[in-house]
C-alpha cells in the first residue's frame, strides 16, 4: 500500500511539473523512501530475512545522500548489524559495510576492507567501485584509475564505472571527457530514479561551470531542481553560479536554503563567505562564528569540514597558525588534490612558500583545472618571487571563466598595475 501511495504521489509530482506548476513537491516520496518502505515491509514479513536488512541499510544510505543527513548512516549501520546477527559475515552485508565506511569518510579502513573483499571475490564490480572511491579520496589516483578501468572492462559502460571514470577525467584535467561520460550515465539512468538523475545533471552543470559555460550550467541546474525540488547539491552549485554573476543576494538566499536542507558546517561556510562578499558583514560574522564552532566539533572526526576550516582560518580569521595545524592533521590522513591545495595554502599564509609550492604543484600535476587551485598556485608563486609562473597560473585560472576566476583576475590586474607603476 505504501508503494502504491508513493507511485501515485510520484505520478502527481510528474504531472505537476509537466504543467509547469511551481508549488513545492516535497511531499513526493523519494526513491530512497520507497526502497526503505519496501525493505521494511519484507522485514515485517520475515524478521529473519538478512537480505531485507541489507536492502534497508542500502536504502538508508541512499536517503543519507538525498537529505545529506548523516543520521541515516547510523540507522543503516543498525540495519546492517541486524543482518549480521541473522547471517554472520554475509558477503552482501560485508560489501555494504565498506560502503558505510566510505560514507563516514573512513577511507583508509574502507580501502583495507575492500581489498579483503576483492581477494575473496576477485571480479565483483561493486568492490572495484569501493577500491576506486577509497583510492580517489586518499589521493592514490593511479590505483583508483586501475580499479575504475577494471569496472568498465568487467561490465561495459556500467553506470557506476561511468560516474567514477568521469570524476577521474575531471581530476586529470579533461572536463569535456567527464561530461561525455556523465551524459552517458544520465542516458542509462532510469527516469524513475529522479534523484540519481538530478545528481548526474548537477555534476554536468558543475563541469560546465568549471569551464565557463554558465548558460548551459544554469539550464541544467534548473532542470535538476525541477525534477528533485530543493535538491541541496543543485542549490549549492546554483549559489556558486549566482556568486559568479554577482547576484549576491540571490546567492545568499540559495546558500541559506541549502543550509536549511543540510545543516552541515561546510554548507554554513559557503553561506558565510557569500554574506561576506555581499557586504552583509554582521550576518557573515555570525555565520562564520557558528561555522567555526560546528567545524571544530568535528575536526578530529573522519567526516569533517577541515578543508573549509583551513580556508576560514587562513583567509577570514587571520589565524594562520591554526590553519596550518588543521591542514597538517588532514594532510596526515590523505593526499588528494584538495587536501594538497589546502595544505599548500596553509603553508603559504604561514610564510613557508618553498614547501607550499611543492604541494600545490603536486596537486596540479594530477592535471586538475580548478580555478581556485590555480589562483592559489599563482599567489604562492608570486610570493616566491616567480612572477612568470604566477602570471601563467593566474591567467589560466582567469581563462577558465569559472566561479573562482574573478579572484584570479583581480590578482592578475593588481600585478599589471604594480608593473605599470614600477
Amino acid at each position: 500500500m505504501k508503494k502504491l501511495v508513493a507511485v501515485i504521489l510520484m505520478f502527481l509530482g510528474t504531472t505537476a511539473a509537466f504543467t509547469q506548476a511551481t508549488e513545492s513537491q516535497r511531499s513526493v516520496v523519494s526513491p530512497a523512501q520507497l526502497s526503505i518502505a519496501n525493505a521494511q515491509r519484507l522485514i515485517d514479513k520475515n524478521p529473519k530475512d538478512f537480505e531485507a536488512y541489507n536492502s534497508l541499510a542500502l536504502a538508508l544510505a541512499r536517503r543519507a545522500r538525498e537529505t545529506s543527513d548523516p543520521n541515516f548512516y547510523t540507522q543503516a549501520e543498525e540495519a546492517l548489524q541486524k543482518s549480521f546477527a541473522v547471517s554472520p559475515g554475509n558477503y552482501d552485508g560485508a560489501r555494504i559495510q565498506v560502503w558505510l565506511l566510505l560514507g563516514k569518510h573512513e577511507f583508509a579502513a574502507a580501502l583495507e576492507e575492500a581489498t579483503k573483499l576483492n581477494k575473496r571475490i576477485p571480479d565483483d564490480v561493486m568492490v572495484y567501485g569501493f577500491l576506486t572511491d577509497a583510492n580517489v579520496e586518499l589521493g592514490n589516483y593511479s590505483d583508483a584509475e586501475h580499479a575504475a578501468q577494471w569496472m568498465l572492462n568487467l561490465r561495459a559502460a556500467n553506470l557506476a564505472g561511468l560516474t567514477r571514470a568521469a570524476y577521474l577525467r575531471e581530476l586529470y584535467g579533461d572536463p569535456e571527457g567527464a561530461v561525455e561520460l556523465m551524459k552517458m550515465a544520465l542516458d542509462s539512468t532510469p527516469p524513475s530514479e529522479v534523484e540519481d538523475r538530478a545528481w548526474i545533471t548537477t555534476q554536468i552543470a558543475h563541469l560546465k561551470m568549471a569551464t565557463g559555460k554558465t548558460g548551459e550550467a544554469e539550464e541544467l541546474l534548473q532542470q535538476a531542481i525541477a525534477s528533485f525540488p530543493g535538491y541541496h547539491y543543485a542549490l549549492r552549485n546554483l549559489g556558486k553560479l549566482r556568486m559568479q554573476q554577482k547576484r549576491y543576494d540571490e546567492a545568499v538566499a540559495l546558500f541559506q536554503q541549502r543550509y536549511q536542507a543540510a545543516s552541515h558546517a561546510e554548507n554554513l561556510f559557503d553561506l558565510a563567505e557569500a554574506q561576506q562578499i555581499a557586504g552583509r558583514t554582521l550576518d557573515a560574522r555570525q555565520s562564520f562564528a557558528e561555522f567555526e564552532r560546528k567545524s571544530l566539533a568535528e575536526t578530529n572526526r573522519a567526516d569533517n569540514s577541515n578543508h573549509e576550516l583551513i580556508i576560514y582560518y587562513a583567509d577570514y580569521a587571520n589565524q594562520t597558525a591554526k590553519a596550518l595545524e588543521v591542514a597538517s592533521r588532514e594532510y596526515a590522513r590523505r593526499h588528494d588534490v584538495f587536501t594538497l591545495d589546502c595544505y599548500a595554502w596553509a603553508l603559504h599564509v604561514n610564510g613557508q612558500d618553498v614547501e607550499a609550492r611543492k604541494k600545490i604543484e603536486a596537486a596540479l600535476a594530477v592535471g586538475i583545472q580548478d580555478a581556485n587551485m590555480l589562483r592559489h598556485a599563482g599567489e604562492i608563486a608570486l610570493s616566491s618571487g616567480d612572477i612568470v609562473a604566477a602570471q601563467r597560473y593566474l591567467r589560466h585560472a582567469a581563462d577558465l571563466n569559472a566561479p573562482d576566476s574573478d579572484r584570479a583576475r583581480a590578482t592578475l590586474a593588481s600585478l599589471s598595475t604594480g608593473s605599470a607603476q614600477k
Partner: protein
Amino acid sequence: MKQMKAVLAMALIVLASGNMFASSHREAPITALDRGADVTDWYAFVSYDHPDRVTMILNVDPLLEPANGPNYFPFDPNVLYEMKVDNNRDGMEDVTFQFRFKTEIRAPGVFTGFVGGIFGIPPITALNGPGSEGLSLRQTYTVTMIKNGKATDLTGGNSLYAVPSNVGPLTMPTYDTLFSQGVYSLANNVRVFAGTVDDPFYIDLGAAFDSLNFRMGVGGILSPQVDADDTHNYAPDSVAGYNVNSIVLEVPITMLTADGKLHGFGDKQAVIGTYGATSRPVVSVRRTTGSASSAFQQVNREGNSLINELIIGTGSKDKFSTDDPKNDGQFAAFFLDPLLAHLFNSVLGIPVPPAPRLDLLPLVQYTAPICPGCGPKDGGPIADLLRLNTGIPPTAVGKQKRLGFLAGDIAGFPNGRRPIDDVVDIASRAVAGILVDPVKYGAAIGDGVNINENGYGTTFPYVTPANSGRNSHHVGPGQDGCSGQPNGICPIN
C-alpha cells in the same frame, strides 16, 4: 572537496540500484546488473503471411511491471541493439541489423512522463503531431544494415518512434492505435516496430527454479491430456501481465541468404543462423582521442532460447554472454553433458542418455533435420545460433503447434522460434533425450504453462500491445489465470 563527497555518494547509490532486483528471468550475473541490455528472448521465423520474408524479434529488459510509472521503460540510448545472421555456416555474422535509440524530452524542465486527459493536456493518441502532446519522453530510433562491410540506413529518412508503455485508458484511450502507429513499412519490403509490448514468453518460473518443483502433482511429467492442450494453462504463467521491450524486424529472405536468392528446404543455402545481441560502448578512464569511443563490447546475446539459462554453468554465464557464437566450442562440455539432464534424472526419476550428447548438436551446428542439405563438412563450429531453414514454409495460424518440431510442426522451434513455441517444454525434452529415442527418453516434461494467455499476433509485428498499467494483473499460485484448471484457479502445489 564537496564535489568529492558528492561523487562518492553517487557512486554508492548507483551501485545499489542494480542490486535491488532479484528476478530469475535474468540469467547472467553481469546482465542481472544491466536490465536495459538484458536480452530476454530471441525469435526468428518465416513470416506467416509472407513466406518470402523472415521476421526477427529481439526482446530486452525483463519483467516490466505495467503500473510502474511515472516514467516506464525507455530503451537505453547507450545500448547498441543488434540482430545478426550467419548465412554461410561459419558461425560468424554476415548480415547485421543495428538499432540505436535517442530519447527526446519534450517538456522543458521535466525529464519524463506520459500525461493525458488532465490539466488540459489531450489524451495521448498519436506518436507524433496532434495527440502526442502528452508524450514528454519520446524515443526515436534508426535501423542500419551492415552487409559486406557496408552500412546502409534502412530508415529512408523517416522518423521512427518507439511505442511507449500502456499507461492506462485515461491517458492513452486508444492504445492499440498507438501500437499500430509504431509499425513502419520501409523500402524493399522491410517492416519494423519497436516499443513496449506484452511479453509473449510463458513459463512457471517459480516452479522451474525451485529445483524443478512443478505443480499439478505430476512431478513435471504432463498427462497426455494436458500435453495435448495447446490452448489452456494448467499452472501459473509467471510472466503473465508483464511487459517487455521489443524490436521486431521483417526483411525479405533474399536480403539474408548468401547469394541473395530463395532456396528450397533441401538446399543448405536456405539455412541461416541467427542471434540477438546487446552491446555497450568501450570506455577508458583516459581518453585516447578527442571523441567518444566507437568500439562496442557485447553485454548479452541469445540464439537458442534457454541455452544460457539451462545449459551454461553459472561460472561461465558472463563469459558466454560477452563472447561470440563462433567461440562456443569452449562451452562444448556444457552442451555435450548438460547438468540439467542429470537433474531431470535425479529429480523426476526419468532415464536420460549418457554423455556425450551428440544428439544436441543440431542446436549448435548446421546439420539435419534443420539443415537436411548439409553434409558432414557443413556443420561449422559449435555455435549457439537459432538456425532457421527459410525453405520450410510457415505453418498457417491456427495449425501451429506449441511443441513445434516435436509435434510435427516443422516451422517451429528449434527450426527458428515463433512466439507460440513452448521452448520450455521443447528444450527440456530435448535435454532429456527425446531426439535420441522418443520412446525411451520421451517423457512429456513440462511446466503446465502451455500458452501466453494474452495470445499472439497473427501478422507483423507478431507481438501484442503492452498490458495496461491501470487494468492488468499478474497470475500466481492460488489465483485466477489457469483456464485449464477447474474454475480457472492456478494450483499452488
